[in-house]
C-alpha cells in the first residue's frame, strides 16, 4: 500500500542528468570544430569506463544495477572529467581518472547522492598530481602549429603513445592560454605583447574561448529549464569578474581582464556544470552564493598566484569541504518565524 501524495511530476534523476548532458553538447561540438575529434575519443573512453566501474561497484555493494546505470550520473561524471583533461592524454590516464572518480570519490562515499566531493574534480585532481606532464598535452587549435596530427595519428598516440616519425610532441601540442600567460608574465613580458600571440583570440584563448561560449549557452539552457538555480553561476562568475576587474584596473600590465578569466580555462564549465553539481554543493540559496563566491575567489587566487595553471578544480574541491558548514549557517527562516510581518 502506498500513501499520499499519489501523483507526482513526471521527472526523474535520469531525465535531469540527461538534460545536463545535452547542455554540454554545444560546447562539445565547438570543441570538435576547433580542436578536432580527439575529444570524442576520450569522452567515449571515459563513458565506457564510468559505466563499467559503476556496474562493478554496484555489484560489489549489492545494489540494483540497472536503475543506477540508467540514472546518467556516471556518464555526466565521465563527460565532465573528459572535458577537463587534454584530449591527447593517453588512454590509460582517462581510464584511471574516471575509475578513480567513480569507485573512490563516488561509491566509497555511499554512491549517488552521498559523495562529498565532485567526483569528476577528484579524478582531475588525481591525474594532475600524478601525471603533470601528460596533463599538458593540449591540442593546438586548427592552424596554430606547423604540423597537425590526422585523426588516425591522434588515435595512435592516445592508444599506443606513437607519434609520426617527423614530429615531436612539443611541435604538436601547446600549453593552455592560462598557462602560457602565466609563463610569459614570469618572463616579464608586457600583457599587451603576450595577448597578441596567435594563441589568443577575442577575449581569451583562440578556439577555447568559443568552447567556453558553447558551455555558457548550455548553461543558459540549464538555467532556463530550472535544472540549476542562478545563484552559483552568478556568484562564481561575478566574483571572478570583480576580482579580475580590480586587479586589471590597478595594474593592467600584469593582470588579465575579467573577460579573459571568464572565457579562459574551465570558468564556464565550472560555473554551470561543475560547481552546480547538486550533491556536492550547498542546498540553501544563500549558501550557494557563499560557496560559489568562495570558489570564484579561490579560482582567481590559484590562477594568478598559485602553482597550477587553472584553479577551478581545486577551488571546487576546497569549497566542497565547506558545504556542510555553509549549509548549517545559512538555514532559511521558516514560515511564520521570519520576524517582519504586517
Amino acid at each position: 500500500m502506498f500513501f499520499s501524495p499519489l501523483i507526482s511530476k513526471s521527472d526523474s534523476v535520469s531525465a535531469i542528468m540527461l538534460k545536463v548532458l545535452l547542455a554540454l553538447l554545444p560546447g562539445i561540438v565547438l570543441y570538435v570544430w576547433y580542436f578536432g575529434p580527439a575529444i570524442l575519443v576520450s569522452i567515449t573512453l571515459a563513458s565506457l569506463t564510468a559505466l563499467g566501474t559503476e556496474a562493478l561497484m554496484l555489484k560489489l555493494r549489492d545494489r540494483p544495477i540497472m536503475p543506477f546505470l540508467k540514472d546518467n550520473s556516471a556518464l555526466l561524471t565521465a563527460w565532465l572529467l573528459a572535458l577537463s583533461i587534454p584530449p591527447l592524454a593517453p588512454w590509460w590516464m582517462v581510464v584511471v581518472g574516471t575509475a578513480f572518480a567513480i569507485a573512490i570519490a563516488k561509491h566509497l562515499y555511499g554512491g549517488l547522492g552521498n559523495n562529498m566531493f565532485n567526483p569528476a574534480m577528484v579524478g582531475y585532481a588525481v591525474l594532475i598530481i600524478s601525471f603533470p606532464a601528460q596533463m599538458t598535452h593540449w591540442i593546438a587549435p586548427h592552424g596554430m602549429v606547423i604540423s597537425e596530427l590526422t585523426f588516425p595519428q591522434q588515435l595512435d598516440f592516445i592508444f599506443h603513445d606513437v607519434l609520426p616519425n617527423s614530429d615531436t610532441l612539443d611541435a604538436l601540442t601547446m600549453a593552455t592560454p592560462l598557462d602560457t600567460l602565466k609563463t610569459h608574465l614570469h618572463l616579464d613580458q608586457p600583457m599587451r605583447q603576450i595577448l597578441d600571440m596567435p594563441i589568443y583570440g577575442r577575449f581569451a584563448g583562440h578556439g577555447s574561448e568559443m568552447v567556453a561560449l558553447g558551455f555558457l549557452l548550455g548553461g543558459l539552457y540549464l538555467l532556463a529549464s530550472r535544472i540549476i538555480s542562478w545563484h552559483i553561476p552568478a556568484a562564481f562568475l561575478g566574483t571572478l569578474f570583480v576580482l579580475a576587474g580590480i586587479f586589471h584596473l590597478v595594474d593592467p600590465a600584469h593582470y588579465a581582464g575579467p573577460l579573459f578569466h571568464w572565457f579562459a580555462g574551465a570558468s564556464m564549465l565550472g560555473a554551470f556544470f561543475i560547481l552546480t553539481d547538486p550533491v556536492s554543493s550547498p542546498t540553501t540559496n544563500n549558501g550557494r552564493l557563499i560557496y560559489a563566491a568562495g570558489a570564484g575567489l579561490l579560482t582567481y587566487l590559484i590562477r594568478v598566484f598559485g602553482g597550477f595553471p587553472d584553479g577551478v578544480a581545486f577551488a571546487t574541491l576546497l569549497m566542497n569541504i565547506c558545504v556542510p558548514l555553509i549549509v548549517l549557517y545559512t538555514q532559511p527562516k521558516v514560515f511564520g518565524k521570519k520576524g517582519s510581518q504586517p
Partner: protein
Amino acid sequence: MPVGNDNMRKLYHFHGGIHPPSNKTQSTRATIARAPLPAKLVIPLHQHAGETAKPVARVGERVLKGQLIGMPDGIVSSAVHASTSGTITAIDMQLIAHPSGLPNLCATLIPDGEEEWVPRKAIDYRDHSPAGLQHLLRMAGVVGLGGAAFPSDLKLSLDRHKITTLVLNGAECEPYITCDDMLMRERAAEIVQGAEMLRFMLDAEEVLIGIEDNKPEAIASMRAAVAAGGHRRMEVIAVPTVYPGGGAKQLIRVLTGIEVAAGVRSTDKGVQCFNVATAYTVHRAFAHGEPLLSRIVTITGNVLHPRNYEVLIGTPIAELVALGGALPDTDSYIMGGPMMGFPLPSVQVPLVKATNCIIASSKKIFPPPPPVMPCIRCTRCADVCPADLQPQDLFWFAQSREFGRAQAFNLFDCIECGACSYVCPSHIPLVQYYRFAKSEIHAREHDKQLADKARVRHDYREQRIEREKQEKADKLAAREKAAQAARLAGAQPLTAQQQAEQAELETSRAHIRELAQSAVEHADEGTTK
C-alpha cells in the same frame, strides 16, 4: 510580496507551491444530489480530533434523527448524532476510515425509513452569548469540515485576543475535490449567513472569503450572496490557484499577510479561519436547530458518473461508490485528495464528518510510484515547500532516525501537503518519512511522560515505606523504654496487661525481623536474576 489580482486588494505570497493537474471539472458538471438512505449506517464515535465521544444510546434502542448518541467526553471532543431514525443494533469496534486500518468504537444504526426528527429548535443567534452558542455547536457536533475535523466550538474560545479578521476558506486547492465549490455555487446564502454567525461569536471586524480563481462560478455566486444579504465588511476574494493555497496558514498569509507559525494559534495574531462548509453547518445548527448529520462528498476518479452528493454520516462508502459507478479496473479507494488523502482499508468503512472526497483509484489514474532513487539534494522540494523548510535535510534526519535534529530543523512546521514528494525526481516518499518521524517523536514524548509519572510514584512509595519503618521503630523504642522503666521501678510480678504488652512487643519485633529478611531476600532475588 503582493501579487496582482482583480480584487483591488493587496494579496500576499507564500513560498513555493505547485500546480498539479486539477481534475475538478469532471465532478462539477452535475448539481449536488442527495444520496438515498442506506440500509445500514455505521456511525463512528470518534470522528473529530480529540477524545472519543461517550456512547449514550443503548443497543436495541430506537433513536430519532438528530438524537444524541455520543456525548462529548473531555474538552477536545464533540457530539455524535443518529443520522436518521431507526434502531441501534450494536455499539462495538468496527473498521473505520483511518490510515491505520484499525477498528474503533462505532454505533450501528438500522434506519426505519421514517426520517423522524427529534424536536428541533431554531434560534436567533443574536439573543445568545458567544459562550452559549459555543456550547450549542459542541452539542450539535459541529467540527471543521475541511479535513482535520477539529471541534469548531474550541476555535471560537477567545482568551482576551481581539479578532480582526475572520477568514472563510473556500480555496479548495486539492485536485479532484469539488465539494466546497459546489456548496458555494448552490448554497452561498447559507454559507454567508453562517459566516455572519461566526463573525458574531468572534466579534471579528471583517470577513474575508478566499476562493481560488479556478472557481469563477463559486466566486460569482458567493459575491452575489454577499451583495444580496447586504453584508458589511465581508469580501469574496479570488486568490491565485496554487497548491497548497487552501491550507489555513497559507490562505491567512495570502489574504492578510500574516504568517502563523507552527504551535501558534492564529487567534493570537487576530485571525481565525473556518472552512465554508463549516460555516454552512453552523448556519444549519442555529437557524434550523439541526446537528451535523450529513455533508457534501465528491465521488470521482475512476467512476462513470463523478458527482457531489449530500450523504448521511455513517453511510458505507460502498453505497457512494455504487452511485458513482466505479469502473471494473478500480483497485482501491482514496479518502481525501491525491495529495493528502489515504487509501481506505475497506470500501465498507463508513463516511465520516471529515470525508470530503472519495476517489476511485486505478493503475491508470494513480500509477504506482517509480522506483525510489537516492536523494541528490537537488532542492526542488525546498523550492516548493510552503513552510520554507529544507525537506531534503528533514528526510535525511528522519531516515537515519535522528529525531532531535529533525525537530531542530523544524519538522513540526511541516503541514504534510506533499508538494515535496510531488516534485521529487528521486520519487522518495518524503511525507511518509515526516509522518513516521512525527509519530515517533510523539510516542517518545508520551513514554517520557509516563516514565516521569512512574518515577514520582516510585519515589513516593520509597519515602512512604521509609517513613512507616521509622514510625514502627520509634514506637518500638518507646515501648521498650517504658518496659525497661517498669522493670527498673521494681521487680514486681508483671500484671496481665503488662504481659500482654510484652507479647505484643515480641510479635512486632518478629514482624520487623521478617520485613528485614524479606528485603534481603528481595535484593538477592534481584542480583541472581
